[in-house]
């Protein structure tokens, strides 16, 4: 299968910041699914660079071109039972797919890599962005609603606004976050359906578990939010949020003042 390799290499090596980078030892695969003990398992030290959902590896840190690319969509990242300490594996769903076994320099490095790789998928990113989009809409609506209701001079009224639970669903961190090492990639191994609300409902429920791949119908087609307009890179604003931005700027000053007041009160209350 062809790939626009020149552009991919350019993306890998250009100075756009990487999401994570470092040396890892990569197990050499010799067409075995498992490392049998009677075959020597060997590892090669490579320089790895994570950009988005793409994991590149270079022969040396200053190599001009990557040796290889692992597209991370649909993978799971797991700690490894390998003989090596600090080993973890990137695995894919389909039968017979090989695993990439990687070994970090130490515990902290291993944790950092597993965390970064688990959350690297496009699907995950898209989920978070849509959640935030909703939250911003709700924050704006709350703001507008507060404006309309009669103003109270008591401080408790103002506090209530700022800690309005409808603004941010802080309760119930999804359980999967604590179990960060296992099935964050595609979520295919996770019974995500259980805790996962239908995003179309637009309620302020806790953020759903990282997704399996969703059908097109539930991604953009049925999405309640309007398509993002052709945006300048700096501010991807939808037709609606353009209006909210105005609202925000308008009320922003009052909020900033209120917040300062509230924070000062907090400080005084908690010496």
């Amino acid at each position: 299968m062809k790939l626009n390799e020149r552009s991919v290499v350019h993306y890998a090596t250009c100075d756009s910041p990487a999401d994570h980078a470092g040396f890892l030892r990569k197990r050499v695969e010799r067409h075995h699914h498992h490392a049998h003990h009677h075959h020597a398992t060997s590892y090669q030290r490579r320089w790895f660079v994570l950009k988005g959902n793409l994991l590149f590896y270079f022969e040396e840190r200053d190599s001009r071109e990557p040796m290889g690319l692992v597209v991370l969509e649909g993978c799971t990242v797991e700690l490894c039972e390998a003989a090596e300490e600090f080993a973890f594996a990137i695995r894919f769903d389909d039968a017979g797919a090989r695993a990439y076994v990687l070994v970090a320099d130490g515990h902290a490095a291993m944790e950092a890599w597993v965390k970064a790789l688990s959350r690297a998928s496009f699907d995950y990113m898209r989920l978070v962005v849509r959640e935030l989009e909703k939250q911003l809409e709700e924050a704006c609506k709350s703001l507008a609603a507060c404006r309309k209701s009669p103003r109270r001079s008591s401080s408790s009224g103002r506090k209530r606004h700022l800690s309005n639970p409808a603004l941010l669903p802080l309760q119930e961190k999804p359980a999967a976050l604590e179990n960060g090492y296992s099935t964050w990639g595609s979520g295919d191994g996770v019974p995500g359906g259980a805790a996962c609300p239908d995003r179309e409902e637009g309620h302020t429920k806790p953020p759903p578990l990282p997704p399996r791949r969703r059908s097109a119908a539930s991604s953009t087609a049925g999405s309640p939010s309007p398509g993002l307009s052709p945006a300048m890179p700096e501010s991807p604003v939808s037709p609606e949020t353009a209006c909210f931005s105005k609202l925000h700027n308008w009320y922003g000053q009052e909020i900033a003042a209120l917040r300062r007041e509230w924070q000062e009160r907090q400080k005084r209350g908690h010496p």
Partner: protein
Amino acid sequence: MRFNERELLCLARQPAEKAAEVLMRAPKKGSVLKKRLVKLVVNFLFYFRTDEAEPIGALLLEHCRITKEEENVFSISFLEEPERKYCFECDSEEQCQEWIEALKRASYEFMRRSLIFYRNEIQKMTGKDPLEQYGISEEARFQLGTRKQ
């Protein structure tokens, strides 16, 4: 450069963000428009011969520019080689615009910028960091202002 083709092929079989039969022309000199099935999945555009299950190829949609060309036609080119264009002719102007919009939003980099933008807006409005509940507020890739392109 090696890549995990098997997984990419698997990705090509996933439900698409968008799919259509269009006419496609590669940037090579003397290329002609050919009927292709194009399928947008995450930040890849796969293209197939219309009667085949496996894609001929894939375009990674990072650092690319989507340009409206003549009627019903748009092109994809990449930052380091802006003159090398993949051209796509749609059935209608409407379809053409839909694809342009979808492809502009299809990159991981675009989503990252959106996330940073929303995070910042929410933080300004509410004083709270919406990423905290995800446990990812410290990650370098979500910080404001430090990223160039």
